[in-house]
């Protein structure tokens, strides 16, 4: 069922593997609701949070997930890239490995950094977001939330709205949702679509939000990065909000039970109007809670995968 030592992306996961992670997460969710929120699954194991990019919620979520499984957590913050630090990613990772660790959770601004890591060290690698490539645990928690609310994923219509070109969240959602049988719609201006958007496994690439919103079962509203002015994909915030922001007005066209999702942190009044973000359709806080359970499942499974892979093989010193 699960033989993977690493979780680098959702693109390579089979339907069975995805379902297995989601089912495992469901089991772990119960732990988070106990008064004593601990399970011994990773007791004696060391998890390193290796974050080369600022992140509060993903890091906290992984830290909590690891500690609820009784692992020891080592926090490692590297400001800027390995290049600007002078130490290469390989060297940083090998140094950590020499300390005796079991799982590296890596967040990095360069796409493919977790792949690189998985090739040069022996321990498990979990991708906590790499460049514009993937953010698999975010994709999993989004899908987990959809499944929890709707009982299933197959056959649902999910719109991902915003800067698809630069979004790792979008990529993980696309692969995971597609594999589980959902129909994915990409919504945003052509300037924020990747070069080959139509070759991805999506139902449609759409530039008119209002034309499709009525059919959708879930709306995943991506965070718009103001910072990205270098090659801005839209002329002004005002114009973006009018065309693609989820306003109270626009919500009137949506199904009454549509799920409003957001990976956070939200820009209130930009991609989401406050009333919508805080409204009954919003799953934003539920996503955050589910994130811990999903990450517990991922840490648990990659550790299990490593144990299987390492069976009968001496560990490299």
């Amino acid at each position, binding site marked *: 069922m699960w033989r993977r030592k690493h979780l680098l992306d959702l693109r390579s996961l089979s339907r069975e593997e995805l379902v297995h992670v989601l089912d495992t997460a469901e089991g772990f969710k119960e732990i988070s609701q106990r008064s004593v929120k601990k399970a011994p699954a990773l007791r004696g194991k060391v998890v390193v949070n290796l974050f080369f990019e600022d992140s509060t919620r993903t890091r906290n979520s992984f830290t909590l997930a690891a500690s609820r499984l009784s692992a020891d957590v080592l926090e490692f913050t590297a400001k800027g*890239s390995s290049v600007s630090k002078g130490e290469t990613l390989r060297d940083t990772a090998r140094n950590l490995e020499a300390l005796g660790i079991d799982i590296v959770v890596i967040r990095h601004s360069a796409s*493919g950094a977790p792949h690189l890591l998985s090739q040069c060290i022996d321990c498990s690698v979990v991708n906590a977001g790499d460049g514009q490539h993937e953010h698999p645990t975010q994709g999993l928690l989004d899908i987990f939330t959809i499944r929890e609310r709707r009982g299933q994923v197959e056959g649902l219509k999910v719109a991902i709205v915003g800067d698809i070109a630069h979004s790792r969240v979008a*990529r993980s959602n696309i692969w995971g949702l597609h594999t589980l049988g959902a129909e994915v719609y990409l919504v945003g201006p052509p300037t924020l679509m990747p070069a080959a958007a139509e070759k*991805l496994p999506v139902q449609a690439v759409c530039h008119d939000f209002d034309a499709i919103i009525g059919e959708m079962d879930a709306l995943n509203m991506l965070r718009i990065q103001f910072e990205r002015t270098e090659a801005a994909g839209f002329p002004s915030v005002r114009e973006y909000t009018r065309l693609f922001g989820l306003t109270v007005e626009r919500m009137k066209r949506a199904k009454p039970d549509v799920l409003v999702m957001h990976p956070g942190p939200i820009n209130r009044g930009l991609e989401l109007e406050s009333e919508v973000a805080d409204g009954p359709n919003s799953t934003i806080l539920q996503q955050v809670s589910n994130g811990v359970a999903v990450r517990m499942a991922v840490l648990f499974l990659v550790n299990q995968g490593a144990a299987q892979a390492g069976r009968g093989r001496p560990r490299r010193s």
Partner: protein
Amino acid sequence: MSERLWIRNGRVIDPASGRDAVGDVWVQEGKIAAAGQVGGAAAREIDATGLIVAPGLIDMHVHLREPGDEEEETIASGAAAALAGGFASVVCMPNTDPTIDNEATVDFVYRQGAAARQANVFAAGAITKGRAGQELAEMGQMVRGGAVAFTDDGAGVQSPAVLLRALRYARMFDKAILQHCQDEALAGSGVVNSGYWATVLGLPGMNALAEELMLYRDIQLARQAQGRYHAQHLSTRGSVEIVRQAKAEGARVTAEATPHHLLLTEESCQTYDANYKTNPPLRSSGDVEALRAGVADGTIDCLVTDHAPHLRNEKELEFLYAPFGIIALECAVGLYVKALIEPGVIDWARLMALLTVNPARVCGLAKGTLAAGADADITLIDPARRWRVEAGRFRSKSRNCPYDGWELAGRAVATIVGGEVRFQLQGD
């Protein structure tokens, strides 16, 4: 070098004269001698039965990194690598530190090349000072020092006004302008081909139009300037079509292609292995097919490795941060066989033309022929020899070779420079 050589019973392919027949080649006093004109003491005999005897191969696009990055390659190590790959002559690019943009640095290249006594090393000078794309470098002075062509390779000359000036000025010396076609504004920070794999991998893409628009623009400029224009490392279907059309219309344009653009596609980047990171980037299988068709119909004149050595620790960086470039001098012949001969794109005689007389003409080298009186630069190739690429055994100082471990057919077994056997393949 007064050694006399008798190269016996090989398949002599000399595209410059149209010769392609089994026979002998004589060498005396460092020159090719006509049969029957060799006198005096007995010659050293080389049995070339089953081998191809061709003019010394020429690679007009290599990076030897000296001066400035001698830890990656030196003129001596790069020229030794060339020799081991069957290349009797290479033209090195000026994107060194300092830039080869004046007579003194050109002269330095020739002195280092002569001291190394490996392959002949010719220098291409920069088009603009410091390769900054602004002011013309002293082309006249560099020609006096021996520069054979001009290029800002690594980057294209962005300003059409500057390129037009360069094309007109270089006409005075009858030298070609070699352009790395890439519009920087459009290419942006791209590291792979813009398309499906860039999208999946989340890596910034380079638009094929960045190459094609500059190429199209340049050809119009070259026509007006009546200059000699050579497009470096074509990588897209559109580029091949643009050159094909221009040639049909009589433009003075030539073009080259690399083994990697003839063999590899963007799909190779999916493991984020930076040994597949090149500029221009690896493109689609359709582009590979178009490039091969361009070789077949003569749109592409020359084959070049764009040998670009980099340190292992640099290539082990994140794909985004690793430098561009692949090395291939020592396995190039086998790669060309795989890309062009095995699939039946061209035959050996055409392949030899693309590696000898054609680049010699573009760069104005008195090389690339086995005519009597020519410099005795000769390459012996075993077309049937099967071998395995082992980058760890390269003479090059670098190892950034994506072909490591490949099984190839066809290999240079001896390289003769100026009548001197400077490389001979030992055992296996």
